């Protein structure tokens, strides 16, 4: 992390420096071009002025004018030579060789020596323009470049200073900004290390600034919440398996052991084996139900659904239970519309209703009285509802949520056969259809309803979370 920070700041500074240097070079180059152009223009103007003087007052006037001008302080360069190259007038002591050979503007700056030099430096740089007069004499007018060089130096050092200052400022700013970002990342790292070491209740820090870091933390926190939910589910399932599968396994083992230690006769042996098979079947049932519930809760189960007529299915299942109910002195009262089309799994809806009817017959029916179990299928604009109501003892309000939990059984029902998974399975089926399971007081008795949105195709995408 820290290495990344150092690398990042180096790259950042380098980019900044390159930009600044390009800026400095561009500005100075442009500036000196402009100044040079101005100098050359001034030289040309002065030369044409001098040519006029020569034409009006001849060689004497020209020499005099140049002599006068070259004595002025901070003057330009002036030089008049005869055709042989001997100096006749001007303020230039000597010139770089060859400057006077060509007429017109000097392409580059040249060095020269000046009379009455007070600055100390004997040699200077200059640009100039040379004209040849009709009699072969040459006139040179030039401008000293020292000023401009100095100007360029000043600009450059000013810009370098500014660059250095900006670089330092950028580094300082980046250091503080980067450090606070790093500090927050360190916070996230520390929190995730604690989470990794097993504390799933820990959450990543959220400052409330609503920035990228907060969004990242919030998303990761949501992920963590989902994981802990699944973990709790897994924990429950393994606890449940430990309890509700170990118990029958223990019984199974004990029976086998007892049969071994005291070999029974053929009839007894058969009975023991029958009991053991029944125990196995019950365990398989429990196991299947658990698998189904966990598949639903993990959200991974894509059950095949199709357009089905719920009214037919409900009537079918009630028909299946009719004789059983009659034997248990219970009356099944069915209320269904002529047809109710929905997008659902035929098998699962039938299984859910079968579980609810099983429960009602098991817990509400009593041999000493006539029980009435009502099965009603209704719909409104939003949902369809499948309710099974009995007039039995019901479930106290504070217990209704609990009976849906896996393996939870009310104390008084523990002696009854069953896995304690029936309602959990019905709830799982409701959720797989995007709906929910509702328990209410039927006064007297219990009403259990499966409530599922009508257009399950949309609700299914919303999920059950």
């Amino acid at each position, binding site marked *: 992390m820290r290495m990344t920070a150092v690398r990042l700041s180096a790259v950042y500074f380098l980019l900044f420096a390159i930009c600044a240097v390009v800026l400095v070079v561009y500005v100075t180059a442009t500036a000196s071009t402009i100044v040079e152009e101005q100098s050359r223009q001034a030289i040309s103007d002065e030369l044409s002025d001098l040519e006029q003087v020569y034409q009006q007052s001849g060689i004497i006037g020209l020499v005099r004018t140049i002599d006068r001008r070259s004595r002025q302080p901070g003057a330009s360069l002036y030089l008049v030579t005869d055709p042989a190259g001997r100096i006749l007038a001007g303020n230039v002591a000597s010139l770089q060789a060859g400057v006077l050979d060509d007429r017109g503007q000097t392409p580059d700056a040249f060095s020269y020596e000046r009379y009455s030099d007070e600055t100390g430096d004997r040699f200077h740089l200059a640009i100039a323009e040379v004209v040849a007069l009709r009699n072969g004499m040459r006139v040179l007018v030039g401008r000293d470049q020292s000023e401009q060089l100095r100007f360029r130096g000043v600009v450059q050092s000013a810009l370098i200073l500014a660059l250095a200052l900006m670089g330092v400022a950028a580094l300082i700013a980046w250091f503080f900004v980067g450090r606070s970002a790093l500090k927050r990342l360190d916070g996230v790292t520390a929190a995730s290390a604690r989470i990794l070491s097993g504390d799933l209740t820990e959450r990543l820090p959220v400052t409330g600034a609503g920035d990228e870091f907060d969004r990242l933390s919030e998303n990761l926190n949501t992920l963590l919440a989902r994981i802990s939910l699944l973990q709790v589910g897994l924990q429950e399932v393994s606890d449940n398996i430990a309890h509700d599968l170990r118990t029958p396994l223990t019984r199974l083992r004990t029976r086998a052991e007892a049969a071994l230690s005291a070999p029974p006769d053929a009839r007894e042996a058969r009975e023991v084996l*029958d009991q053991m*098979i029944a125990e*196995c*079947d019950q365990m*398989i*049932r429990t196991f*299947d139900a658990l*698998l*189904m519930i966990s*598949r639903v809760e993990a959200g991974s*189960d*894509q*059950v*095949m659904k199709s357009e089905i007529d719920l009214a037919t299915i409900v009537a*079918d*299942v009630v*028909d*299946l*239970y009719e*004789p*059983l109910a009659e*034997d248990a002195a219970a009356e099944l009262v069915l209320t269904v519309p002529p047809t109710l089309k929905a997008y659902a*799994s035929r*098998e*699962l809806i*039938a*299984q859910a209703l*079968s*579980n609810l009817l*099983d429960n009602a*017959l*098991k817990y509400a029916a009593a041999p000493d009285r006539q029980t009435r179990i009502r099965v009603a299928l209704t719909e409104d604009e939003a949902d369809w509802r499948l309710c099974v109501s009995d007039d039995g003892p019901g479930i106290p309000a504070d217990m209704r949520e609990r009976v849906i939990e896996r393996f939870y059984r009310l104390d008084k029902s523990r002696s009854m*056969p*069953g*896995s304690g998974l*029936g309602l959990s399975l019905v709830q799982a089926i409701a959720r797989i259809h995007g709906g929910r399971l509702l328990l209410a007081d039927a006064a007297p008795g219990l009403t259990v309803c499966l409530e599922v949105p009508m257009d399950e195709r949309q609700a299914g995408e919303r999920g059950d979370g």
Partner: protein
Amino acid sequence: MTEAALATVSTESMRILIIEDDREAASYLVKALKEAGHVADHAADGEEGLHVAETRGYDVLIVDRMLPKLDGLSIIAKLRESGHRTPVLILSALGQVDDRVKGLRAGGDDYLSKPFAIAELLARVEVLGRRRGAKDVETSYRVGDLELDRLSHEVRRAGKPVVLQPREFRLLEYLMKHAGQVVTRTMLLENVWDYHFDPQTNVIDVHISRLRSKIERDFGSPILHTVRGAGYIMRAGD
């Protein structure tokens, strides 16, 4: 209520191929099928199974879904592609609702999820093996003095009419169609009600006892027998 012994149930011998990679389970199946009077072979992986099934004639194939080299559903698809119509019973440890649908769509004729009762498997194999001589085209069934007319929906025993509910009629129709074969509770739930879940209470038994009271009560001799640990069988005479 009488009980018929399981071993006496089988009437005709069938050639059966078991394609199953679990050798212990397979040898147990082979043993059980032989005891029931059938000839049973075993193949331990998908490729071998497909080869054996294609080259030798079998009455029924028992195919595990998950196999090394070639999975069960692919075997069935390949067999069906090359024109083999041998009935297939799929065995699977995947017991969820949709797995069955997928298996049957792939060309399987029946589906049994593991673990299963051996009696359940034997009963299903019997029914599958005799499907080709199916009684689907017959318009009436007769077992002893019990007659069922599939067109008029009339049932008579010893010439006397028996009044049945529509569901009871369909239950009896299925039992008589498979007269002489063991029919399990899940087979009844699947074929008469068309549901595949496992009800916690044995709802089928109550339906059977109702039906039995209607076709037996006034006639003395039992005709619908309970096969202990397996299911029911329609058989006259004993």
